[in-house]
């Protein structure tokens, strides 16, 4: 426990009219060097790093305000690893996935680095990024019911996807589509069918097959199992695990479902208010949660047989006007005056387990 919290990333005046003094443009995370000096932002990332996110800031500019959806996020994904990003809604999880894919609205400001195969994704031009999308980095979404074009057969979806990354014969495309469908457990005989002829679970399998047809090295699953029933959910999770093992895929699993996290994750990052407040291996985060928010989140899980349900009071902060210090401070039961002064420095519990709290 330190007497004085170190302001890590965002220097701020301690007191003052925060909302009005907030400049419209994003502030450069000036003091990050201090945080960096402590060690790698996401320790435990050994060799075989597929993607390395460094001090990432993503801000949505609207006419009236700036929403800081990701603030100083750093994490590394290794080959064959399932990395889960958890937190409640409006914490910046999906924004992080969309930032990696650059599927953001036009007027979005992004700072930091996303290093993928030695190249910073934020510096690539549109065409280079387009070539990466679907081929090297793939994304699957929450709502498989609406993610397939109702007018295109499954085969056409594959043909289009394959053709967008280079010329290919229709026969060859069909063959690869059949292989990909087979890998996710959809009978290739259904290639000619249209999306509305499939169930939600089947459509999600098809989305996964489409995402994996090029054998990408990174798969971002944005709430991929949320809208599915538990049985299908379990099937999809098992499938993702199998594919991870088979292709050495790195999976960034974005979810608010702690059951899903426990099921498949190797490592976990807990996001709150646009910040990563705790990260570590799944065991560390689940068995020794260090951040009060993580603890609150874990205790909110409904257990079979328990009569009472605990929850965290309040709402996540408005990221258009985030609190000056720790974003969780207003809801935290261990809040102290220094919590308001700045985002607390990271503390290391082990070489892999890190959390940001003054406690």
């Amino acid at each position, binding site marked *: 426990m330190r007497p004085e919290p170190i302001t890590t990333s965002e220097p701020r005046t301690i007191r003052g009219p925060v909302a009005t003094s907030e400049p419209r443009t994003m502030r450069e995370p000036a003091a990050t060097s201090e945080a960096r000096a402590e060690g790698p932002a996401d320790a435990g990332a050994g060799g075989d790093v597929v993607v390395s996110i460094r001090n990432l800031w993503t801000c949505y500019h609207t006419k009236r305000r700036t929403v800081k959806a990701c603030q100083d996020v750093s994490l590394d994904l290794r080959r064959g690893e399932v990395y889960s990003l958890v937190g409640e809604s409006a914490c910046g999880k999906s924004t992080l996935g969309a930032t990696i*894919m650059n*599927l953001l609205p036009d007027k979005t400001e992004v700072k930091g680095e996303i290093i993928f195969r030695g190249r910073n994704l934020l510096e690539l031009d549109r065409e280079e990024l*387009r*070539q*990466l*999308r*679907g*081929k090297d980095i*793939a*994304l699957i*979404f929450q*709502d498989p019911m*609406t*993610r*397939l*074009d*109702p*007018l*295109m057969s499954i085969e*056409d979806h594959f043909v*289009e*996807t394959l*053709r*967008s*990354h280079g010329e290919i014969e229709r026969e060859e495309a069909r063959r690869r589509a059949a292989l990909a469908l087979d890998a996710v457990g959809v009978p290739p*005989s259904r290639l*000619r069918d*249209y999306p*509305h*002829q499939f169930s939600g679970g089947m459509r999600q399998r098809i*989305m996964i097959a*489409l*995402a994996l047809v090029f054998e990408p090295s990174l798969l971002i699953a944005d709430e991929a199992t949320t809208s599915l029933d538990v049985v299908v959910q379990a099937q999809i999770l098992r499938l993702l695990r199998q594919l991870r093992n088979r292709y050495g895929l790195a999976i960034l699993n974005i979810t608010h479902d702690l059951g899903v996290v426990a099921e498949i994750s190797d490592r976990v990052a807990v996001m709150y208010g646009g910040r990563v407040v705790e990260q570590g291996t799944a065991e560390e985060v689940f068995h020794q949660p260090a951040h009060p928010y993580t603890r609150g989140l874990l205790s909110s899980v409904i257990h079979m047989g328990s009569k009472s349900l605990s929850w965290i009071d309040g709402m996540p902060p408005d990221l258009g006007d985030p609190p000056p210090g720790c974003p969780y401070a207003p809801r935290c039961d261990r809040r102290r005056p220094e919590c308001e002064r700045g985002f607390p420095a990271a503390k290391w519990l082990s070489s892999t387990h890190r959390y940001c709290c003054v406690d």
Partner: protein
Amino acid sequence: MRTGGTAEGSRGCGPATAGGAAGALVGGSRLQRTWAILRSELFTPSGVRIIIGVVIVVFYLFVAVFAPVLAPYDPQKLGVGGRLETPSPAHPFGTTYLGYDLLSRTIYGTRTALEIVLLASVIAMAVGVPLGLVSGYLGGWPDRVLVLIMDSVYSFPDLILAIVIAAVLGSGMFNAAVAVSVVYVPQYFRVTRNHTLSVREEPFVEAARALGASKFDIIRRYIFPNVSQSIPVILTVNSADAILTLAGLSFLGFGITPPKPFWGLDVSEAWRYLTMTKEYPQVWWWTAIPGLAIVILIIGFTLLGEGLNDILNPQLRESQR
């Protein structure tokens, strides 16, 4: 699933049976599949509409193609009969004031009408639809400029705009088609653009982007097919409208000029005699027959367009079962 009385009656709701018409829906080329779908749709309400529409339009096409064979007289030859003769075996539809044979003029008028309307629709579509797609998908300042231009074109009364363009271009079939098409470009543009705006926000478009589809591919393969369902409807409404605009143009001396056989021309020439009940008490055939030709063709276009619209959209198709 429907049962009985359908072209695919073998696809019952009971236990699976091998083979059957279902096979055609799975195998074969794209053309074969399309045909299989059409065949299985023939006896639904939209199928019946299509059949009637096709019969009417094909009939007109047939008449247009074989006009020289079908027409008993030269439609532009004066005095093949007397003035304003009532329908008789020699002149089944009667004759006009100048002694033209009305049957021959109606038959040849089909040619004129179909040629100009199809040409005008193709020009209007070829300009309006791509502009609408690009404008709607890209947005930003090109969109604003295009919308401004199209809205100002659209704000002119149809006929006046067509007259101005026809006056600038001069008379003739092609110029008449261009004059009519300019009037309808904004309609194709608007419908396409508005539809594009909604389709562009569909999750599957974002999914396609996430899979690496380029802008051009997204417009061509994902947006256009979803937007194109609304085109047949505008096409049929506009085709009907275009015939009327064309008639108006001809009436005022632009576009198609008198000796050429055209229903609109005949109607507009005949209506003057309708008011002269004393001198010419019975000239109903001169307006009624070309008028009927117009109305029936419009009905044919509309039935065809709406029936196709129902069938080309797989979701709509499925929901009717």
